[in-house]
């Protein structure tokens, strides 16, 4: 499990404290009070994160991917061998696991990442250690396979 503490820094907002924001952006954009007397900034371009995952799941491509994943399962190792990946520590490993776990189910998170990617890249110069938090399904999945 990953517990992400909210940013704690005081004073100016530069530097660290960005961890976790990425994972709650949808709350900043989609929750919170709306007051009729105020107008809102256009969110055009952000709405692509609203993907119905079920549509993605119910496709032949997804079926084939699941079949392929089952084909790789080691049935001989027994059902209770290792129920899941071990609890992971570390930002990079964690991002990789999340990308892997969501791989078959949706590209929504990655799409979301792309939507804000421009801003994220612009900010990455400010805090170089945050980039690994971005889900990187392809890169980390292949790396995990090499490890196993």
């Amino acid at each position, binding site marked *: 499990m990953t517990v*992400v503490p909210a940013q704690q820094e005081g004073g100016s907002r530069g530097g660290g404290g960005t961890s976790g924001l990425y994972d709650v952006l949808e709350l900043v954009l989609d929750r919170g009070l709306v007051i009729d007397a105020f107008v809102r900034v256009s969110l055009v371009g952000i709405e692509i994160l609203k993907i119905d995952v079920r549509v993605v799941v119910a496709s032949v491509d997804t079926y084939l991917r699941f079949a392929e994943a089952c084909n790789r399962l080691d049935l001989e190792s027994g059902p209770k061998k290792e129920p899941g990946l071990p609890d992971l520590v570390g930002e990079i490993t964690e991002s990789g696991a999340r990308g892997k776990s969501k791989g078959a*189910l949706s590209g929504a998170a990655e799409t979301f990442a792309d939507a804000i990617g421009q801003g994220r890249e612009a900010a990455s110069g400010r805090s170089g250690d945050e980039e690994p938090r971005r889900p990187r399904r392809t890169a980390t999945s292949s790396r995990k396979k090499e490890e196993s």
Partner: protein
Amino acid sequence: MTTYIYGIAHADHPAPEKPVLGVGDPPRPVRIIRAGELAAVVSDCPDGLRPKRRDLLAHQHVLTETGNAGAVLPLRFGSLSTDDDAVRGALGEHTEHYKTQLAELTGRVEFNVKAAHREEAVLRLVVDDEPEVRRLTEALQASGGGDYPERVQLGELVANAVRAREVHDAHTVERALAPLAEQSAPGPEGTGWLVNLSFLLPRTETAPFTEAAHRLAEEQPQLELLVNGPLPPYSFVRPAQPAAEHASRG
């Protein structure tokens, strides 16, 4: 001068001890506008504000910083008013509603919990639980991958089973955590997680909740659990009903 509004607080909400920086580049300093019994946390709004990462982060940062000093009702990102006077006018419109909300949310924080399946682990559960999936998987592996219809058939069975498992595990998460929170509220759907739930907790008593989340993660190793908090109580603010509409519904 357009005014950007971050949140609503009591009129006696203290001004920040240190400067708090808001949206824009360069970031605009945050100030407090007071009107009657309420106050608004605002800054000037830069021209052409867009939901860029830097500004989303600033919104969250301002609410976190000012929320540490007393209850603040978080506004959704990107709320603008023509000027400070218009903000004061808006504060006067639903004063009682905002005061009630501030009282409810004083000393409260939000924790957001998301879960996704670890793919290999959930496939293993499905193969163990569904004899037909196991039989087809064994047949597929024995035949070196199977032909196209067999793969589609197995894949569809597995997809449906995984889907059912998502619903099951979403309930598992809610059952484990909701009793430890004062309120819970669903997060936005369609963000790719099998569950996205927010919980309202007393700011000073979050440990039992996070400990329960740790236990849940241990007991359900197929779940990748992501717990974010403490956050401003985004999911627990309610809009004021226009007086006429409220009366006609009653």
